């Protein structure tokens, strides 16, 4: 019985085994869905031209360039020609670390860490980059970026946590010991999770 069962299994494998080779692909996608951190940036958009409608949502990285042209894969949440936005996230740091931070914008933008302005760009004509090394102490820090842009606005917060060139601060791009997590959208405060 065992032999015939084994033979049947082998035959089935040779007949349908090709399809088994497809399985790693959906399994890999499911695995990525499971490990992907939840979007940490709480984004709030208000069109300058009118008070309504506003858009509030969570985003996985703070890096936007809205051209309004056909090359956009993801459309802008509100009229990109005239937008005010704020982005909030919380960063948990395990031990003191120096992190290069960069703010890139084509409008007016501020990076506020724990109620203190760290980087600021005012009325930029074209795209402007400002950056500096920031010593982050252990604990939880509240990151807030405020932004006002007009034509073809761009806003990004870049950081380097591992010595490589700074990349957009996204939920899944931080080094061990540092993690980004969601801000409480009601109180806009951070609490250790």
């Amino acid at each position, binding site marked *: 019985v065992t032999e015939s069962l084994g033979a049947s299994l082998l035959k089935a494998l040779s007949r349908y085994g090709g399809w088994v080779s*497809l399985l790693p692909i959906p399994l890999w996608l499911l695995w990525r869905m499971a490990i992907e951190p939840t979007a940490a940036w709480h984004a709030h958009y208000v069109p300058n031209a009118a008070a309504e409608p506003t858009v509030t949502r969570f985003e996985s990285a703070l890096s936007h360039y809205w051209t309004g042209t056909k090359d956009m894969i993801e459309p802008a949440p509100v009229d990109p020609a005239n937008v005010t936005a704020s982005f909030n996230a919380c960063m948990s740091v395990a031990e003191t670390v120096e992190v290069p931070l960069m703010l890139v914008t084509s409008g007016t933008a501020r990076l506020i860490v724990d109620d203190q302005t760290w980087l600021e760009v005012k009325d930029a004509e074209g795209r402007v980059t400002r950056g500096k090394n920031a010593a982050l102490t252990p604990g939880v820090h509240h990151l807030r970026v405020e932004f006002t842009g007009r034509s073809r606005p761009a806003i990004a917060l870049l950081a380097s946590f591992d010595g*490589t060139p700074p990349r957009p601060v996204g939920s899944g791009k931080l080094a061990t010991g540092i993690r980004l997590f969601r801000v409480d959208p009601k109180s806009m405060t951070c609490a250790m999770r």
Partner: protein
Amino acid sequence: MEVTSGSNAMTAGRRSSALSFDHASVALLVCTACAMLATLGDYGFTYDEPPHIRYGERILRFYASGFTERGSINTSYVGGFDLLAALVRRISPLNALETNHLICVFVAQCGLIGTWKLGSFLGGARAGFFSVLFLLSIPVYYGHQFNNPKDVPFAAGYVWGLYYVAQWIALYGPVAAPPGNFRAPPWSFIIRCGLVLGLGMSVRIGGALLIAYLALFICVALVECKRLNIVHGWTAIRPIALPLAVAVGVSWLLMVLLWPKAMLSPFKGPAKAAEVVTHFQSFDSPTLFEGRMLSSHKVPWYYLPTYFIRQLPEFAIICLLGTLGWLGVRSYRAITRRQQLPLTLLLLVVAAFLPPTYAALRHSVLYDGLRHFLFLMPPIAILCGVGFSAVLRRYKSGPIAHALVACLALFVIDQTYALVRLHPHQHVFFNRTSGGTKQAAKRFETEYYGSVYRELTTDLQAHLWTKDKDRYLNTTHTVTGCGSKLFFTENLPLNFQYTSMRDIKHADIFATYARDRCLERLKDRPELLRVERDGATLAIARSLTNDVVRTKQRPTK
């Protein structure tokens, strides 16, 4: 008829060997899927991907709106792949381009399975294994599997279509045992056949070729039967008239369902698209061929054969030529001795050689090397696999067989090394008779698809960051280069700003790939870095920040 799988006469030893080869094939396919997933992130996006992503979104909006939102869907591109990718994007945690790559790999894997199935059907389990091995050993095909949303999906549809056409001819044709009239296939087979043909057409309207092959080979089978005095008259075809109509109807229906243009105009839409594709003249891309830049409208008839001869591995070419010779002899003998022709293998020969012959005779618009004809790779690999398996069967376990297996092992090791060496730009492979990629890069298209920009821009960031971190933190770099601006805006963070080549005087970095001889431009400017494989330069970045007068250097034509 060359159908060995399913033969009742199979001995116990051969059955055991067949099972071993089947299991080896499954293991090879699983390993390939895992390897492709593990390296998925290394592949950059190509210029074909963003338009297809946008098209997929438009198709989805068209269906979601109840067929009312029809903006820009009136295109000759069929949207089966793009619609699938758009649906997966709804649940995928990856970004749009990464998700597209994952779907590319999934569909490519279906193509590998189709190659295995067809190879096994035509030459047994061993031939199926060799077919997959040959296909994976063609670096140009391997590289395109990750980021080509048109040509590799069509290749997958093409090989599956051929599998069903071959089954129809071999199992239900008049020369199948017992000889007589055509036999109506079971309905499950007819529906599956229709769905597969429809999926082939849902990537490119050229998939209709598969229906033409089916019709052609039914006629050939009939002529063959008359020659052998098995059946008489066209009435022999009567049992399959309805099944054929159903299969074609199902395929057409599936294509229409996946293609908004056809849905709005079920007959005129596909007809118009077929006309546009066969008389494609609206795009002229200069292409590098034998060291000269040619208009894609004016390439010589030997453009495609040259690329195939130079980009297929030498051992594959030898096996292909050997198989063609063996088939020629077999067919000649069959005709002179009134035996059956190997119709299903001849189907494969037609499938591999008719499209490029047609393109050469019609002086079709050709560019990007053999990219548009990647769908010929699976039939070519199967011909190699079936031929190689037949030779091994002929010599059994003698010294010649051992020598052949040793040759195959060397070939696989050599090609695996090439795949690793060129990673992730396997599509730039040229064989040794062409002088390798280094020599060929001066005379032929190598990196034309833009995927190299991922590596180039990553290296560029690292270079500038390492050179002066403080400056990097407070500088917006302005970059220009050849090709789509998305190569820069999607691969670089926002502290890099793209400007077009027309506005090059405002740029401080020139970064480009090899297409359009862009590597020859601005050669007087200091080089920052380059991307090389096998000694061939695929991309380069130059500084434009010193005071040397910036002049555009046009390539010599």
